[in-house]
Structures are given as C-alpha cells and as structure tokens.
C-alpha cells in the first residue's frame, strides 16, 4: 500500500437519466501524495466535478476503489465521520450563508462537527486574521466583495483542520486581478499548512502557477488523457508568469486541451 494520501483505482461513474445513460467517468486512476498540490483541468463535461465529489463521498462510484490514507472507502456504507473530518470542500461560487455573519459562516463546520472547545474558536479567528478579514468578520456576506467572500469560503473549509482540500474551480467566478491575488494567498496557505490540495480549474495559467502535477481530462466519456509534471521552482510568484518556462508549460497544456477539444468535435 503506497503512502499516497488519496488513491483512485479504476473509477467509473454512470448516470442513468430517463432517456439515456451518461458515462461521466471511465476508468480513472489518480494518486495524490501527502502535501501534494495537483490540478485537474479539462473542458466542461469531462467529469472533474464528479471525481472530486466521489472523493468526498457526495457521489458513490459505479465501480472502482477510493483509498484515503490507505483505508478503502466502502462503496456501500457512508464514509466514517473521522475520515470526513479530514476533508475540506470549497465550492465554485463563494456559497456563504447570507443569514450568518462572516465569522459565523467560517465557524459553521465547528458547530456541525460539534467541536465546542474554545481552542477551535481561537483557530477560526486566527484564520480570519490571516486572510485580512478581521474588520469585516461581523459583516454580512452580501456586504463583501467577491474576492473576500471566496477567501472566507477557503478558510471555512480549513477551520476543522482537514488534511485534504478539495477545490472545485474556487476562483472561476472572480475577475483576473482578484484571482491572481487569491492564487498567491492559496500558495502561502499551502506552504504554511502542508495540506494535500486537489484543485479543479479551467484556467491554464492557474494550473501551471499553482500545482506540482496536472491531470488533463478528456470528455464523453470523462477520462484522464495526460498527466503533466510542472517542476517550476518554489516558492512561486507573479514574476514567474512572464518567464519562458512558464509560457512553455502553458502552451503544452493548451495544446493538450486543444487536442482533447478537437477529438471531442469529431
């Protein structure tokens, strides 16, 4: 049993609608080492959201196995609570509850998991401090900008100290400048906490800037088309975007996705 944090072996997922069966994911094998930062990129409809929801056991796979910390997640029973506590899920839209203040939103997982110990509350406040939301922590989410709401979304998924962060196109809805800003902040968080991050994105620059490895997905059926290692120096910063090696990786990835799209049209 390799020491991979998450291992997906021969994963398949079929969705049966009234008219036809859609093969969302076929025979996907993926591995995420502890502390790894891996991106999944591909056109819409290639099953990347399905895969991330299968890891989090929101969706049960039709066949294939999922190992988290070496322990097999049974396809029949619900995932045990202690394993769920290891995972933080970050959504595409900020998904803040407008009826709670920012601080209450961030502490929601603590209330659901029943972590009453004041030490957890201090941890939540530290996270709020870290992302500069301190003076807005009693504001309501509707009064915040898109960037700040998504920052709150990220730390909400980390407040119960999970080892794994599953991020489903977290910065997709933000404008370019805020997205660059949040990419850097995410890198700082990742470096400081050493969490395993599974990062879904549409943006090639984002994938190359952030991750060690990138899985390129094809569509109908959703499958892994390629796995590209990105060995750019760490720590990474904005200056990197202008360097040639960065542009090289971007072209490689864009080319690879281009081929996928072409094969999709044929």
């Amino acid at each position, binding site marked *: 049993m390799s020491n991979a944090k998450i291992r997906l072996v021969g994963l398949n997922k079929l969705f049966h609608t009234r008219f036809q069966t859609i093969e969302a994911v076929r025979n996907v094998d993926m591995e995420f080492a502890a502390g790894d930062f891996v991106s999944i990129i591909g056109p819409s409809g290639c099953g990347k959201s399905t895969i991330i929801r299968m890891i989090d056991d929101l969706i049960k796979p039709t066949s294939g196995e999922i190992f988290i910390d070496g322990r097999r997640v049974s396809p029949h029973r619900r995932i045990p609570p202690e394993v769920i506590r290891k995972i933080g899920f970050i959504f595409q839209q900020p998904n803040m509850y407008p009826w709670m203040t920012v601080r209450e939103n961030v502490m929601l997982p603590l209330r659901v998991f029943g972590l009453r110990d004041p030490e957890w509350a201090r941890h939540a406040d530290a996270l709020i401090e870290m992302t500069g939301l301190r003076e807005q922590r009693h504001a309501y989410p509707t009064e915040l900008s898109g960037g700040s709401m998504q920052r709150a979304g990220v730390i909400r998924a980390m407040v119960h100290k999970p080892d794994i962060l599953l991020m489903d196109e977290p910065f997709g809805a933000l404008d370019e400048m805020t997205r660059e800003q949040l990419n850097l902040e995410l890198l700082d968080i990742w470096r400081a906490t050493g969490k395993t991050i599974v990062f879904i994105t*549409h943006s090639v620059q984002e994938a190359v800037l952030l991750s060690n490895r990138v899985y390129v997905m094809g569509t109908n059926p959703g499958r892994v088309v390629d796995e590209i290692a990105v060995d750019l120096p760490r720590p990474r910063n904005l200056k990197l975007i202008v360097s040639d090696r960065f542009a090289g990786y971007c072209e490689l990835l864009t080319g690879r996705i281009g081929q996928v799209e072409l094969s999709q049209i044929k």
Partner: protein
Amino acid sequence: MNWCDHKLSRLPFEPPGSGMDRSGPILTLDKVSKYYEAQNGGELLAVKEVSLGVRDREFICILGPTASGKSTLLKMMGGIEKPTLGTMSLRGEIFEDGIPANKLRNFGFVFQQDNLLPWRTVVKNLRLPLEVFHSAGHGSADRIAEMLTLVGLQDYGDVYPHELSGGMRQRVSLARAMVHDPDILLMDQPLGALDAITRRMLSHELLRISRATRKVMVMVTNNIDEALLLGDRILVLTALPGEIAFEAANDIPAEARNEAIIENARYKALRALLDDIVHAQSEAGRTAGRTGGDGE
C-alpha cells in the same frame, strides 16, 4: 462551423443619417463628468472630465481597476445615464444633456449579466428592440434569423433563456444589441461573468463578428488579453474618479490577432506594459483608502 463569409443584407429600412462620413469621429465626448449626490450633502465623483472621439469602424477597449467608473462612462455613452457636466456629440450634432431618447436607435448595448427577458423566447427577445423602435415590420423575421445565424444559435429560436448556458445567453444578448443595425455597439464587460474556456471562445467570436459587421464597438473589460485581442485602441482609466490615465493604439497586426496571439512579440511587450499600468491604478485606488466595492 464558421460563418465568416456570411453576406449581410442591408436592412429593408434605412436608419436616418446612416450615410457615415468617413473622416470625423462619429461619437465624441467633451470633458464629460458624472457626480452622484450622496445623502450627506457631499458629492461622489464617478467620472472626471473624460474626452474621447470614436471613429468609424473602430474597436475601442476601456480597461481599469474594479472601481473606476468605466461602466458609468459606457452608460453615459449609451444614453442610460445623463452626464452631469460636459457635452457629447453624435455625427456632429451637439447634445448638452447626454444622448436624447430618439437618437438611441443608433446604439446597441450589451450588459454584463445577459439581461434577457426571461418570459420571452430567444426570437421574442430579439424582437424587443424592433418593437421599441416601431420597426418590427415585415423584414424583421428574416433580420432576426440572420442575427441568430451570425451568433450560431439559429436552431434555438423558441427556447426560453433559462434553458440556455451562460455563453449562449450572452450570444443572444449580443445578437439582440445588433438586430436593429445600430452604428455603435457598446459592451459592458460582456464576457465578465463567463468561465475561462467559454470566455476565450467568445472573444474570438466577437473578433470575427466585429470584422464581419464593420460596426463601431466600445467594450469595457477587466481582461487585458481580451483588450489586446479585440481593441484597435486601448484606454486605461484611473481608480475612482475614473479619468483617462493611458491611451494607446494597439499595433499588433490584424492577422496576428487570433488564437496564436500569445507568440506575437508585440503582444508580450504590450501585455507587460498594460499589466503594470492597470496594477498601478488599482494600487492607487487601494491606497487612497477605498476597498474595492462592486465595480461602478
């Protein structure tokens, strides 16, 4: 599917004054400013003394940090908002108090959130401008079909907007803005709310449509790559109050402006330059004690 060589028939009805004189600018703004009265008696300056000339067949891109009044500027050009100070002129005719309603026939406006009427099907949404301009006569059905073909949605005529994806809704919104054949097309971050791949695809389609239709286009955007791909002239506004901080012609040759624009040397230089300018402006905005609210 490419609709490049699609022949565009002239409209059965000729909009007044459409014989464009090539030389002078079609639309000019002279020291146009916009004040919003705040409750505490003070005034909020959104746009400060912008002077701009829009020439025929020109594609202008307006860049600027999130809160720079660039949307307000575009709304003033489109007659949605009245400027507080300064005059505007359309084909030589001077207007003290913004573009009057009867002249808005020459303008098409594309909003950031597609702004389609949910209770109307796609065809009916396209009929809306024709009905408002009282020209929903005999030629309108073909005109609408033509516009839908132009944006590649000819089979989606009687579908309701909520059944379409974001990208498709934005294409319908673009078709609706052009259905009454306006001379000037104003677009307020048309691709802002779309995901990266659809956005890239639609920006190339916008380029194709602008070359096919030869219309004057003014686009507000916060994406520098889009501005370089589409814009003949690029302006950068300062943070609030919005003032023209930088203006430059985009000298990337037309044939280089396509999918492979990344390799073009001039593109890299201009991108770095614009990157610094826009970042400098948003930095100035932030240090001046204003956190980014939803961009005005």
